[in-house]
């Protein structure tokens, strides 16, 4: 008597290990990736006492509540425009003197604002 072989049954692949691995990958990438956009602001070497460098031609005092450019109080929004006006009169280097109680945020704001002015040399100094 001839016996027909049983038709091969296609077993569905178990999806559990696949899900397992994908889930682990997902967790890894979710936890280790960042969506924060970072920026950079350069702070030059602080002026060394000795007087070999050229003297800055303008001074910007950064105080916690106001900015003073060459002794005159200016609004923060006008900073770039005021400094550009200074450059047109040949004052192309500026010393940023920051008071100790000011925050890093203020310094970063001022520095990135000054960075937008072309042809300006910026030196940072603070109380020691």
């Amino acid at each position, binding site marked *: 008597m001839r016996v027909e072989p049983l038709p091969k049954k296609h077993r569905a692949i178990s999806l559990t290990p696949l899900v397992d691995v994908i889930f682990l990958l997902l967790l890894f990438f979710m936890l280790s990736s960042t969506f924060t956009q970072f920026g*950079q602001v350069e702070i030059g070497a602080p002026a060394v006492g000795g007087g070999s460098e050229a003297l800055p031609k303008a001074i910007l005092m950064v105080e916690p509540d106001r900015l003073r450019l060459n002794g005159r109080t200016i609004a923060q929004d006008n900073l770039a425009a005021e400094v550009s006006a200074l450059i047109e009169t040949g004052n192309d280097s500026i010393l940023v003197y920051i008071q100790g109680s000011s925050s890093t945020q203020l310094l970063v*704001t001022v520095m990135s604002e000054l960075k937008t002015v072309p042809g300006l040399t910026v030196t940072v100094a603070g109380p020691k």
Partner: protein
Amino acid sequence: MITLPRKAEKRQLETTISLINIVFLMLIFFLVAGQLAPPQDGQVDLSKSEQAPPLPPPDALYARSDGSLIYRDEEVTAEAFLGHQTQAGETVVRLGADSALAADKLLGHVGALYAAGAHKVLIVTRKADP
């Protein structure tokens, strides 16, 4: 010949497949949209800037608002950090300073880093939408 009625096959796979689908899509999303980030200090709230040039997620030295320097979750000094960096041939220091850090402490750190041999010190900021 007698034919016996077959039991209807159980179909339970559907839910698993849709689950996998979603999880897979999320995986692809995070793969494509995210950037792998070196460890960041949880206590440091970076200062915001709008115009600063972009920077990939940095392996930065962090300065907390109380003035301590943290690198990879360990407190370091500027000299020790620079000693470690120069061995790796890297003299550009990326300093992630807390936005509330007093400016004299920040300048103190920057001065110490330059004195220890740093070539360039960059303050890491968080880009905010203008």
